[in-house]
């Protein structure tokens, strides 16, 4: 019984971690075709902004978290304009050189990976130089749940509920709002969308800001539970990538299913064999999944559905 409870908490914990780590990355990858290798560093920005706002500026934790989200979203907006779309450098060069120097990185997967990797190097080292090797940490709020000799942090279990909230909100935004409609139109057929009056430039810009904001939220939520070092983003990167690869093209459903599956595998293996093997199991699952379901879980579901329709 006790073991069962342990397992349940561990599952909720890793489910939340995987979903929150992947959400922002999945949105940016799914809609813009940009693989953001600096995703972990966006999370780091959120975590740092939250910590600084809480400890140095003295804001209460929820307000500090909001600051973290907004700062990261704003930062994402700047990155999108300067690096991903190249609008700002192009405007400058148009003025001084009379020609554009940068091609947008949309749908150039390999190039976007390399460019954002450069960005992540700059961010990690830049933060290390300006803010030092570590930062004071916010204490984990809400205490522990204690049960017959064991205890688990209430806060981390609560994050599972937050993760579900994030998924629900993302679902709402992409299916029920005007922006969501434009975004989905842009994914499906950019040229037609533009012909019908959708400002695709603006859709991309908003999408990147939303994805960055979600990364910031992840950073803000985990700020009280992890050590504040400039390289903290890399601990999220693996889970995020694995979840996006396993989830497949549909952002909300894919991330939910991937979070559920990977969370279960990670929790079970960690519980039985230790954290190290939990991580290895996660990575092996990813490799096996790519081999047998190259389009992820939702891609597989899609194929099944098409096959059934053909049969009917």
């Amino acid at each position, binding site marked *: 019984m006790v073991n069962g409870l342990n397992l349940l908490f561990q599952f909720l914990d890793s489910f939340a971690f995987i979903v929150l780590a992947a959400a922002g990355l999945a949105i940016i990858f799914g809609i813009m075709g940009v693989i953001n290798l600096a995703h972990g560093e966006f999370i780091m920005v959120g975590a740092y902004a939250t910590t600084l706002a809480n400890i140095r500026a003295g804001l209460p934790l929820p307000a500090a978290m909001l600051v973290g989200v907004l700062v990261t979203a704003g930062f994402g907006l700047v990155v999108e304009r300067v690096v991903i779309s190249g609008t700002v450098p192009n405007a400058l060069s148009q003025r001084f050189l009379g020609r554009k120097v940068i091609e947008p990185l949309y749908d150039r997967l390999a190039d976007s990976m390399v460019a954002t990797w*450069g960005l992540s190097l700059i961010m990690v080292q830049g933060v290390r130089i300006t803010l030092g090797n570590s930062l004071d940490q916010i204490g984990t709020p809400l205490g522990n749940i204690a049960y017959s000799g064991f205890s688990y942090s209430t806060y981390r279990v609560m994050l599972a509920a937050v993760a579900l909230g994030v998924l629900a909100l993302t679902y709402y935004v992409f299916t029920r709002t005007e922006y969501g409609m434009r975004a989905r139109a842009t994914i499906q057929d950019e040229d037609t969308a533009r012909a019908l009056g959708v400002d695709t430039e603006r859709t991309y810009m908003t999408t990147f800001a939303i994805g960055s904001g979600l990364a910031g939220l992840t950073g803000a939520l985990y700020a009280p539970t992890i050590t504040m070092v400039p390289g903290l983003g890399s601990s999220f990167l*693996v889970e995020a990538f694995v979840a996006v690869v396993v989830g497949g093209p549909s952002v909300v459903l894919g991330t939910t299913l991937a979070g559920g599956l990977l969370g279960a595998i990670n929790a079970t293996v960690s519980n039985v064999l230790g954290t190290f093997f939990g991580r290895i199991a996660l*990575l092996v699952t*990813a*490799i096996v999944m790519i081999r047998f379901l190259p389009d992820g879980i939702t891609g597989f579901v899609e194929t099944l559905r098409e096959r059934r329709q053909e049969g009917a």
Partner: protein
Amino acid sequence: MATETSGAGPADAGDSGALAGLRSRFEGPNTVGNSRGFWVGFLVAVLALAAYPFVVGSYQASRFSLFLVYAFLGLSLSVVWGYAGVLSFGQVVFFGVAGYTFGVVSVNFATPAGITGAFLVGVFGGALMAFVLGYFMIYGGVRNVYVTIITLVSTLVLHTFMAQTAGDEWTIGEAALGGFNGMPTIPNLAFGVGGASITFSSMTFYYLVLGLLVATYLGLRALVNSDYGRVMVAVREDEDRTRMFGYDVERVKLAVFTLGGALAGLSGVLYAAWGNYMSPGVFELTFASLPVIWVSVGGRKTLLGAVTATVGIEFLRNSLGGELAFVIVGVLLLVFILGLPGGIVPWVHRTYVEMRSDGATPEPPEASAEVSD
């Protein structure tokens, strides 16, 4: 092709037949530098590198030989990514596996013959690892983007794995893998059997690496300009069309991937012998990204770019040292991938050719022009 390049300009008229025939093996549309001027420059550069230790002393030469060792790693990614179109983030996997293999074997058999064997086993280990991983991915129908992600994930798996090998159960023969602390007592490289052997340390090691690098560079030039090289480039440009022409695309990709693994393995073995040391640090993300940076900056579709950018960037990074090094490297990467996606060397080459063709002498047809005919 041979007639076109050798009979190109009036400058080449003095070449003797044998030399021109030899040169034509190394020249073609897949490499830059197909003129007599280039080969003169190449010879001067090699001689300058050979004279370098006498100018700066053996300590600096030994430091510089590490950059030359890295050049093999750069070349391995250039072949795999630039010529066959597979972006691998995991060249360091083969580098590390080969280095560790060399370490384990050479510590156990610390005689010249044993070390010679360890060298071969190490390089073979890198190639074998690439073959297995490549077979799984390429014949498994994994698309190119996911190949990148799988290689990245493999790097992380190995890092996690090697970092926890601190215990006594991770001792192979007399060689302890040592977890985070790594393997500190790897012997110097040596070739030969018993008395008839030669051990390579600082100066001799430098010349060994330089010699191997020149040979590898020329060998790869001959490869990419051969018929097989053309098939490789065809695979990079359009897999479906190449398949339609009857080529076995999967086999070509696997062969190139394995070759890349062997080159990265060679680099790893030399690295282990250079520092007498191997640690899980070689599987870290920052190290894994270095080959991608070198090759992107230098120009992934040129072998020369990979070598010069590797040596140049590592020299710069090492001389700068300290905190700013990675910021500068990151900025370099960002600027080049955005502003000059082809890399430096092709850009310099293009500018040079344009500058010369403004003059009176007619230029030989350029690679791009030949292809578009």
